[in-house]
């Protein structure tokens, strides 16, 4: 391993720029003559719009335009789309209501976009927005998805009388029912996977620009996948043909999924730029992010696990109601279906699984993918069930897991997935050792002496990453393929530019991708630049989410590098006057086998461009290659997280005393960056388990609409993490990579809740397990013990 190659903990190249304030975020960009957009948002969760009167607003100083849904319709601008078709059990397609970028006749959640005011300054736009008179007829709202399905509930969209978008299922119902008939023990749980608000540090932003000279648009925006944004805005929304729209996603300050989606604001800014003849800029305020960024999770689940008398799992039955919010966001339909149920087998050999999912409209912000997307929800179901089953049956939770782990690979689960490799015993054993499990009882006694309750919780998580084989996802309803592209441009001086279709918004691609290139081409890491986030530079790409950039994006780069080397060999053969078959490439040198004749990588690059040593008939000049990589399978990162908590029974305050993570991510390019991803993911998972929870009141007002009420995890809420690794290189990935971006967020919630329930006498505890929730559980346990 070289100091900058694969496996080296190279310091992040991009951090110099970020920590010295030299990053270029969308809001840092200002275009000549730009005007400012302010969105007038619905104060009501559900209302019809009878009239919008903008006369007074238009007369205010600095106001350039006030645009509404009627203007969109007049320009034949289409609505936003959901790019994944889900079919119900009965074969019918999902019922998707219209999703105009500005409301047309009706608003469906607080924060819904009613009109946009474009003015010379943001303050003027805000002032004018107050003068826009909107005549609403308020309707009753529904925020609870189960209530939304009931007779007589307010109807969010005309297409679905019971607000149900789909009633989907996966697995074998008959086989699962049969398994439950044979069971000696059945564990039942009612679980809520709490709704989360993403809160990337950089709020969303967009600048739309139109050049009448070329009749072309440019959109600068906070996107995790600029090419998909361009595709949607051109092919579906119809703002401009694809070749007349350039989308630039510059430095982006975190996304966690929330910046995958194509939202109303960037759509409107792009369209409005031509209408007003000025660049139009919008930057969300944090309050807008709370109201109108896609939220995450929000499941209500009844889950049942069937076991034999020795604790072997026979079957799993799950019924989930998923709140999809007021509109179907870009990938909303897939998250509680194909990103969820196929992971319900966890790390276990479960013969029969049946899962039903109802996707439901409510008068709340749209819900879509958020770090982990479906997989945290699945892990929470499986790992809570296994934990409770172990406690109910008087078995050690680690032992019960071991008894049921999959041991042979490849393993076909009853829910689509074919796990290619893993070693779940290894990660469990290592985690037990790192967590000093054998002395837990001693620590528990010591806590008890101080009047504290200590508990330990496990989470054996699995996820499907490397999203995804295009054919496979196509057969499941995806509207796009999920390959990735790369281009390797070698300059005449031997430095290299990598163009990738994935997008970095904090993950450190500029470093890890350069490490791969440095390793493969044997050139210094300083000679490599990574370019992404501009549809004019990178031909096409699917973007970054689902921990896919390493497994899919880097695989594409590796493929392109192989082509560069192959071409380099041809060049070298001409220069060294040897046959191409005799040229070897190693450590940055082309050599003639068995001789000391050699050419450095830079020399070959120069020769490729000056083209003096070969004729155009024999070989094309230049050294630049591209590749598309389509994975052959999902990848399956997995591991074991162990959480140890202490609870103050008098107040219900939980403190996390120890955290042990042992993950199997396959090949690791940069262990420091990977560890950072684990830390961040675990922090978010702990946030979900202990602190975060979006709440709407019954009228559909978001109660947790600021950081004063919505609690994000802070450093002080977190322990120092112990992070370990076990490795089974991924056989279905050319680099052996599985992916690491979401693992922590997937594993953590179940580990925390399992630990708290262990501490408080196995009472169920809902997320977020706030002090009040935990205190009540302590009270209940005390009452139960007194009664027993």
């Amino acid at each position, binding site marked *: 391993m070289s100091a900058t190659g694969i496996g080296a903990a190279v310091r992040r190249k991009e951090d110099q720029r970020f920590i010295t304030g030299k990053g270029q975020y969308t809001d840092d960009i200002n275009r000549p003559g730009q005007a400012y957009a302010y969105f007038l948002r619905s104060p009501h969760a559900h209302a019809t719009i009878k009239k919008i009167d903008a006369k007074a607003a238009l007369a205010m100083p600095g106001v350039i335009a006030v645009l509404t849904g009627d203007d969109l319709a007049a320009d034949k601008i289409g609505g936003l789309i959901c790019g994944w078709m889900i079919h119900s059990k009965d074969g019918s397609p999902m019922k998707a209501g219209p999703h105009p970028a500005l409301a047309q006749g009706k608003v469906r959640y607080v924060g819904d976009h009613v009109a946009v005011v474009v003015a010379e300054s943001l303050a003027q736009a805000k*002032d004018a927005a107050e003068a826009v008179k909107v005549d609403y007829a308020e309707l009753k709202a529904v925020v609870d998805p189960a209530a939304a399905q009931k007779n007589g509930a307010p109807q969010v969209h005309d297409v679905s009388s019971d607000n149900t978008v789909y009633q989907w299922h996966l697995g074998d119902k008959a086989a699962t029912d049969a398994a439950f008939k044979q069971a000696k023990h059945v564990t039942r749980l009612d679980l809520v996977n709490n709704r989360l608000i993403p809160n990337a540090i950089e709020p969303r932003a967009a600048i739309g620009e139109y050049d009448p000279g070329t009749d072309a648009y440019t959109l600068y925006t906070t996107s995790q996948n600029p090419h998909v944004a361009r595709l949607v805005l051109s092919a579906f929304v119809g703002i401009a043909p694809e070749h007349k729209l350039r989308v630039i996603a510059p430095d982006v300050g975190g996304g966690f999924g929330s910046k995958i989606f194509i939202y109303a604001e960037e759509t409107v800014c792009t369209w409005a730029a031509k209408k007003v003849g000025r660049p139009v800029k919008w930057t969300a305020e944090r309050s807008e992010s709370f109201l109108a960024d896609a939220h995450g999770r929000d499941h209500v689940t009844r889950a049942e696990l069937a076991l034999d008398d020795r604790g072997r799992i026979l079957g799993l039955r799950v019924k989930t109601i998923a709140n999809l919010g007021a509109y179907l966001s870009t990938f909303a339909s897939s998250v509680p279906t194909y990103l969820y149920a196929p992971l319900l087998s966890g790390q276990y050999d479960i013969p029969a699984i049946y899962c039903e999912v109802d996707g439901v409209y409510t008068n709340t912000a749209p819900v879509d993918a958020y770090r982990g997307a479906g997989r945290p929800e699945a892990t929470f179901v499986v790992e809570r069930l296994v934990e409770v089953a172990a406690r109910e049956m008087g078995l050690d939770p680690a032992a019960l897991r071991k008894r049921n782990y999959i041991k042979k690979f490849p393993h076909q689960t009853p829910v689509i997935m074919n796990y290619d490799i893993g070693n779940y015993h290894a990660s469990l054993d290592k985690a037990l050792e790192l967590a000093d499990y054998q002395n837990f009882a001693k620590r528990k006694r010591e806590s008890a002496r101080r009047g504290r309750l200590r508990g330990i919780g496990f989470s054996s998580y699995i996820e499907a990453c490397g999203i995804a084989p295009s054919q496979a996802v196509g057969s499941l309803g995806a509207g796009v393929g999920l390959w990735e592209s790369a281009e390797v441009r070698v300059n005449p001086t031997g430095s290299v530019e990598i163009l990738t279709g994935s997008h970095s918004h904090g993950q450190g691609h500029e470093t890890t991708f350069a490490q791969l290139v440095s390793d493969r081409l044997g050139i210094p890491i300083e000679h490599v630049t990574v370019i992404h986030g501009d549809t004019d530079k990178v031909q096409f790409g699917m973007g970054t989410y689902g921990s896919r950039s390493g497994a899919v994006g880097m695989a594409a780069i590796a493929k392109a590098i192989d082509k560069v080397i192959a071409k380099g060999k041809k060049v070298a053969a001409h220069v060294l006057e040897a046959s191409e078959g005799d040229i070897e490439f190693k450590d940055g040198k082309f050599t003639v086998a068995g001789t000391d004749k050699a050419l450095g990588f830079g020399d070959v690059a120069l020769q490729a461009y000056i083209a003096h040593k070969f004729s155009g008939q024999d070989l094309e000049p230049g050294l630049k290659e591209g590749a598309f990589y389509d994975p052959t399978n999902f990848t399956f990162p997995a591991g074991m997280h162990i959480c140890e908590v202490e609870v103050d029974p008098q107040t219900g305050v939980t403190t996390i005393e120890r955290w042990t993570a042992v993950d199997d991510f396959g090949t690791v390019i940069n262990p420091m960056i990977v560890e950072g991803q684990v830390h961040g993911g675990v922090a978010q998972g702990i946030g979900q388990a202990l602190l975060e929870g979006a*709440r709407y009141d019954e009228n559909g007002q978001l*109660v947790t609409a600021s*950081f004063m*009420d919505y*609690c994000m995890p802070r450093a002080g809420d977190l322990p120092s993490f112990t992070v370990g690794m076990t490795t089974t290189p991924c056989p279905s990935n050319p680099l052996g990579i599985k992916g690491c971006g979401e693992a922590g967020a997937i594993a953590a919630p179940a580990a925390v809740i399992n630990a708290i329930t262990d501490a408080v006498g196995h009472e169920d505890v809902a997320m977020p397990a706030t*002090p*009040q929730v935990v205190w009540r559980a302590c009270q209940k346990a005390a009452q139960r013990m007194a009664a027993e």
Partner: protein
Amino acid sequence: MYAFDYHRPKSLRQAVNLLAKVEDAKLLAGGHTLLPTMKQRLAAPANIIDLNGIAELAGIERKGRAVVIGAMTRHADVAESPIVQEAIPALAELADQIGDPQVRNRGTIGGSIANNDPAADYPAACIALGATIITNKRKVPAEEFFTGLFETALEEGEIITRVSFPLPSKAAYMKFPNPASRYALVGVFVAKRGAEVRVAVTGAGADGVFRVGAMEEALKARFSPKSLEGIKVPSKGLNSDIHADADYRAHLIGVMARRAVANATGKA
């Protein structure tokens, strides 16, 4: 934010004159409450009188058996003051638990008291310690100053200049912070001075800070955490919100009061 005229007086007199002269004016101290409400367009004063240029309003002094703190003194300065730490350590500890470093370095005691947020910390200290709020016009005992939710005895044209805290023989503040905002979900300030004992509760009361008579009586008999065992605070009249309902708050008042007394008696 709406447009407003900005004034920066150099002396208390100038400030008082301005307040009398200009229409619809608001005093600006640390701005940590006022500015967010203005940004959200919930407040729209025509004039802002910034108190930050008035040196005489800030500072901490020991005056006989009292500590006197200027209205414009930042929470961080109270927390770090050797005078406060020596004379009333519980007050320094309280200031050190307000919000986060940004809030502590801008927010002021005068602004906090004038605002009388039901979840603010200082009102509990003022009541428990028997503080006197001094304005440009008069001296108001804390008991009479906090009149209700975000309501005080301050009259038009009145500016808080100082707060005087008599020295207790024993005192402690125990705060249970709201995990999101870090304001008090429940905060209990216990103080003993001579034969008098006061127990003041913030964060919990629907009308703001209040005293718990039953606890005070019990502690007068014997100043020990044991004296509080079995004393239940009724949940009626307490706040219920998404973070804590009234029952839980009532329970926390008991826990925090016992811990405060333990702390004040050095038994924590």
